[in-house]
């Protein structure tokens, strides 16, 4: 099932499950072993190990001191941030950027939910950042509900505002779904402010095929989704220039976001969601190991 079909399902919960089931691997596997509920392996006793962890029944059978081990359960606070600026309404072949991002975030939330990770959800609007779902009971379902309700519009968010909750020194994962189409580097500033040694930042930059390749033909009236201004242009006459300036912008963005613990994943709106997610999660599992 490709992205367009999933989005047409209009059922975020199902879509999230379909996408996530394709990635049976967890979001973050723990490599450390220790106390836990699920048995993983036995290892020989070393001096210093807690005697209570020696499996005495096994000792009775085998005469060897073996320690029971299980994977430690790690809990990672996942904060999901959805950009709701007007440019998110950009639509290509029936798929809007907002819908694509919604399914993407829902799928990621589902994976976190399966692992009992605390989830919270924010949106970025013209007025600023808004906390819609706090971590806690039923947060996944509340996130799905808020995602379905979310409507994009207006100009970009006020990126100078700090996320108050972001100041906590607790290990967490920040997932941002946006197009990062902003003048003056507001996004870079925001990410720089949010970056901290305790936080992983995973940015999904979702772009349309026409935005990156720009092979439109003919005469169009381009209407700015954020300001409503419009301009009439012959697509062919500006193709080269647009491609160059846009590629330069993307390169500059990539350069600016090359920060520790910041991962930028660029996705096209016609690529399957599972692949995009897998690419994003790979960067995080690198971090976990």
């Amino acid at each position, binding site marked *: 099932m490709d992205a367009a079909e999933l989005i047409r399902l209009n059922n975020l919960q199902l879509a999230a499950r379909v996408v996530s089931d394709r990635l049976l691997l967890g979001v973050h596997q723990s490599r450390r072993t220790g106390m836990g509920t699920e048995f993983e392996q036995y290892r020989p006793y070393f001096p210093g190990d807690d005697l209570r962890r020696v499996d005495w029944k096994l000792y009775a059978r085998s005469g060897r001191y073996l320690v029971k081990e299980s994977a430690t359960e790690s809990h990672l606070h996942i904060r999901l941030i959805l950009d709701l600026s007007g440019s998110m309404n950009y639509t290509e072949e029936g798929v809007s950027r907002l819908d694509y991002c919604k399914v993407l975030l829902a799928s990621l939330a589902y994976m976190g939910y399966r692992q009992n990770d605390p989830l919270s959800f924010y949106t970025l609007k013209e007025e600023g950042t808004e906390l819609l779902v706090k971590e806690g009971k039923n947060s996944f379902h509340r996130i799905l509900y808020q995602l379905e309700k979310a409507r994009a519009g207006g100009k970009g968010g006020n990126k100078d505002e700090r996320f108050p909750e972001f100041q906590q020194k607790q290990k967490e994962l920040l997932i941002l779904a946006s197009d990062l189409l902003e003048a003056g580097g507001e996004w870079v500033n925001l990410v720089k402010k949010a970056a901290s040694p305790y936080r992983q930042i995973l940015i999904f930059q979702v772009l349309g095929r026409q935005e990156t390749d720009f092979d439109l033909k003919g005469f169009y009236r381009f209407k700015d989704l954020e300001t409503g201004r419009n301009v009439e242009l*012959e697509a062919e006459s500006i193709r080269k220039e647009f491609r160059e300036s*846009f590629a330069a912008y993307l390169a500059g963005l990539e350069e600016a976001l090359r920060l520790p613990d910041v991962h930028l994943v660029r996705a096209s709106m016609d690529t399957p969601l599972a692949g995009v997610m897998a690419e994003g999660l790979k960067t995080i599992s690198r971090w976990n190991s």
Partner: protein
Amino acid sequence: MEFLNPGIGWGLLALSIPVVLHFWHQKRGKELPWAAYRWLSGAVLQSARGIRLENILLLILRCLLLALLVLYLSEPLLKGSEQEKVHWVQPAKEVVDNFRFELEEAGKKGEKRFWFNGDPVTELNAIPADQPADLQLGMNKAKAEGKAEIYLAGHDGFTRFTKVYLPAAYTLHTVKSLYREPSGQETIQGPLKVLLQSEKESISAALEAITEVYGIRFEVDEQRKPGQRYDLSFTHQPDSSATLNLVSGAASLPVSSMTGDERTVWFNELLNPETSDAVFNGELPEIILEALRGEVPVRILSDRQLRDKFAVRKAGRTEGWFSSVILVLFILILGAERAWAIHKNS
């Protein structure tokens, strides 16, 4: 307000061009909601297509420009009363008959009517006899200024000057056909000796036509035989020995060699269908016949040639202050339009 060139008023239709362009420009272009607008607008300036009529002010300015241009070209005259009509009538029965209605109407309106000799027309049927009446001399004599309506036959027997100068604009009314009732008895007796040295093809065709219709036979020599006297000669140089000379291509001859004797008929042009309207229209046999009868020792003029015989004397007065005002206004608005357009683009 009157216009010297009212025909140019149709040029006002050109006003529709910017308007149509404006709406055409607005209509084209599929609307495309676009997120990466900032990277687009950087390219806008360079790709602006020709004249962009984006805003109404510019449209109005440009329409105004066109309207002023048309107004200037059509030379408006504020004092319309000055331009009364003066009718000049060639004293010839065919002309009077042909334009009787127009002339009578003019008489009823009380407009001035003159014969070509300068005498006022009192009774249309009383055609003055002192022919040929010279239009230029008549105009000088009558001293009637105003828009000249000239009624004449399409030949050059109305003046001895190369050009007739008129005080103001004029309109020509020509009797197109010089057809005459054939006289009951054909007086010309054949066979006639003909020397044919100019435009052989068209002339011999005309001669054949005459033979066919009137039964006049021609004996045509293409080379001059010594001692032979010719009744009719077609040459580029007048031939003193012939009874009647039809000299074509006379435009290239010196004026001094063109004498006014009755034995010579001059044609400015060559008698080819390509060069002569009369030949093209098949009037050559008639011209030859009339020359033989001694009736019209004048040249038939085409419309263009006839127009060339007239010119408006440019007096400083005709360039009115109104035209200059329009011109200044035009330049001012042009400047404003340019300034605005450049301001918009930058």
